[in-house]
C-alpha cells in the first residue's frame, strides 16, 4: 500500500492549496497554491508567498490531491435546474419594518 506521504514524482514536492483569512471574523478564502514537503513547510511557504503585504491573520493549507472538485462538464445538470426554482429564495416573506439588516 502506498504511504500517503510518498511523493510520487521524486523531483518535486507535493502541491498544496492555500486559504487565507484576511481579518478576524471573515472566512478563509482560497488564494492560490504552492509546493512544500509537508504541512509545516506549506504554512511557512504560504506565509512567505501570500502574506507579504499584510493579507492575512490566519492560514489553512491542504494538499491539493485531497480536494475533490465537481466536474465542469456536468455544470448543466448540477446547477441549471436551480434556475427556475425561484421559491427556494426567501424573498416571499413580508418583513416587519422593525427588522433591520435582512
Amino acid at each position, binding site marked *: 500500500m502506498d504511504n500517503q506521504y510518498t511523493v510520487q514524482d521524486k523531483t518535486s*514536492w507535493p502541491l498544496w492549496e492555500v486559504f487565507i483569512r484576511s481579518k478576524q471574523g471573515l472566512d478563509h478564502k482560497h488564494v492560490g497554491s504552492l509546493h512544500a514537503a509537508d504541512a509545516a513547510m506549506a504554512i*511557512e*511557504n504560504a506565509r*512567505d*508567498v501570500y502574506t507579504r503585504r499584510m493579507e492575512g491573520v490566519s492560514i489553512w493549507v491542504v494538499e491539493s490531491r485531497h480536494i475533490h472538485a465537481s466536474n465542469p462538464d456536468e455544470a448543466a445538470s448540477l446547477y441549471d435546474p436551480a434556475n427556475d426554482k425561484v421559491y427556494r429564495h426567501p424573498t416571499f416573506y413580508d418583513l416587519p419594518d422593525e427588522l433591520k439588516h435582512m
Partner: protein
Amino acid sequence: MSDQSIIDYILHLGDNALVLGHRNSEWTGHGPILEQDIALSNIALDLIGQARYYYQYASRCINAADGASRPFPGHEALTEDVLAYHRDAWDFRNCLLVEQSNGHWGKTVLRQFFFSAWQFELYGALRHSRDSQLAAIAAKSLKEVTYHLRWSGEWVIRLGDGTEESHTRMEEALGDLWKYTGELFVPADYEKPLALSGVAVDLATIRPAWELKVGEVLEAAGLERKEGEWMQKGGKQGKHTEALGYLLAEMQFLQRAYPGCEW
C-alpha cells in the same frame, strides 16, 4: 563612553544585518524552489531594512560629532548610503560569520540559524538598552528575527535529519561555520564600556540561551557540535576574511563607479 564607541557599536549592528542581507539576496532568482527563493529574499529584505535603521542612526551621530574626532571626514552630510557603499572592508564591523560565502543551501540556512539564534537573544536584551533608539530598533526587529529563527531552525533539522546526502552536507557546513560562532560572544573594544553603561548588551548574559537553542536544534538534526575547536575572530574590529572584499566589490560597484547614482 565616547562618541566613537557608540558609533562603532551601531555600525557593528548595522553591518551584521547588511552583509548577511546581501549574502541572502545573492540567492534571489537562484533558490531551490520558488517558495524558498521568496522566503530567503524576504529575510534578506528584513535584514537590509534593519541595516537602514542602524545606518540612519549612525549617520545622525556622525554628523553631530565635532570636526576633529569625526569619523569618515570628507563626507559633509553623511547618509546611510555613504555608510553602506563608501566604506572599505576594514571599516566594516560585522562578525565573520555573516560574510562567509553561501555555499550550498544547507550552509546558507545553517549560517542563518546560528546568526538568527544570536540576534534573537541580542535583540531581546537590547530592547532594554538605555539608548532609546537602539531599544526601539531591537523591539521592532525582534518579530522578524523570531521568524528567521523558526524558518532556519526548521531547515537545519529537516536537512540534518533528512537523507544521507543532506546529512553529510550539513556536517560539512557545520565544519565550515562553527569556528565563526565564537566571535558572536567576544566583546569588541568599543562594546565593553557600552555594556557596562547599559547601552550595549553584555554578550556573556545571552550566551547560555544561545547555546541551549543551538544545542536543541543540532540534536534534533542529528548533528554533533564540535567541542573545543579553535575560534576565528576579528571581524568586529575590522579584520575580515577575504570573503568580505568580494562581497563589497559587487555590492558597492555601482555607487563607486557612479557616486550618488539613483534609478
